[in-house]
């Protein structure tokens, strides 16, 4: 009997938080309600969680300063150089690995061409190192950001992408 009560208490104590949030349903929620009504320790723990949650919910909201949008707009403008590129080029750039792979192949080709001399043993140092570094730089480069289709996005935000918190209110 003592063991059964202990197990029940442990089961409840691990789910008090979910119970507080209404995340337990059906028999689990009913069972929890019955246990909390009888168990002073669990009732006290639940009340403590409720107070902590209430205190957190009362914490102030914040917002960015009014001038933040202008600053953001400037920063958004900075990398938008690829917007005027023709469509096929933009499609290629959308796959970031394409320019990196092309650069890598060119760098390796150049390194092999420069390093190859039939009369000399293959160099072990500079050319191979330069080729490797060039390739690494190219791989690290980001392709230029593309102009997003904001109309579609904003339609989605109105239809299904709403702020969940605002939806609930």
């Amino acid at each position, binding site marked *: 009997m003592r063991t059964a009560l202990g197990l029940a208490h442990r089961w409840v104590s691990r789910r008090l938080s979910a119970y507080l949030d209404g995340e337990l349903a059906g028999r689990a929620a009913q069972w929890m309600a019955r246990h909390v009504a009888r168990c002073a320790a669990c009732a006290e723990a639940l009340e403590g969680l409720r107070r902590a949650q209430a205190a957190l919910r009362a*914490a102030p909201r914040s*917002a960015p300063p009014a001038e933040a949008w202008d600053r953001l707009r400037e920063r958004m403008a900075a990398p938008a150089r690829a917007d005027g590129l023709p469509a096929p080029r933009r499609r290629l750039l959308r796959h970031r690995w394409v320019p990196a792979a092309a650069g890598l192949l060119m760098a390796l080709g150049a390194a092999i061409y420069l390093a190859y001399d039939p009369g000399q043993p293959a160099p072990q140092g500079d050319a191979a190192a330069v080729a490797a570094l060039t390739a690494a730089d190219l791989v690290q480069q980001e392709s230029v950001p593309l102009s997003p289709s*904001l109309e579609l996005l904003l339609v989605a935000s109105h239809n299904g992408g709403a702020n969940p918190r605002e939806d609930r209110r």
Partner: protein
Amino acid sequence: MAGDRDAFAPLYARFKGMIHTLAYHMLGNRADADEATQEIFLAAWRALPSFRFDARLGTWLYRLGVNVCLDRLRQEGRRRALRNGHGADLMRAARVALGARVEAEGPGADVRAALARLDPAFRACIILRDLEGLSYQEIAEALELPVGTVRSRIARGREHLRAALRDWEGAVS
């Protein structure tokens, strides 16, 4: 294009409050929250072409927001650990730094102080649940975690908060 940037304005206006509140409580001070909010919306602007329309926009922004904040906390922890000459526990260093910087202004400062001492992964779940009002399922989607993990993190995080507030209430009474 300027037109696209202007079209971004309603999106920014709609979500700036919730993103700034998330950043403020994740990072613990207004200046970092201002900068993180800029980063988050800039990341959103750049990532818009990869936005999947099967995800809710708010959930997607929360995901970006939490990731930006966690990155900032990791970087701060790393810098602090390097300054101190040891790098054993970067996230612990980040938590210490954050706890020391929480602004003690206005009501709820005690709650923010307790929140700031939580592990950032737990803190994100608590903020999304109690401050932003997301369901467990929505948090799981935003953070790309199983619902069970979200439930566990919220429970453990709240337990820490409850203990901290109990201590604080005991100290002031």
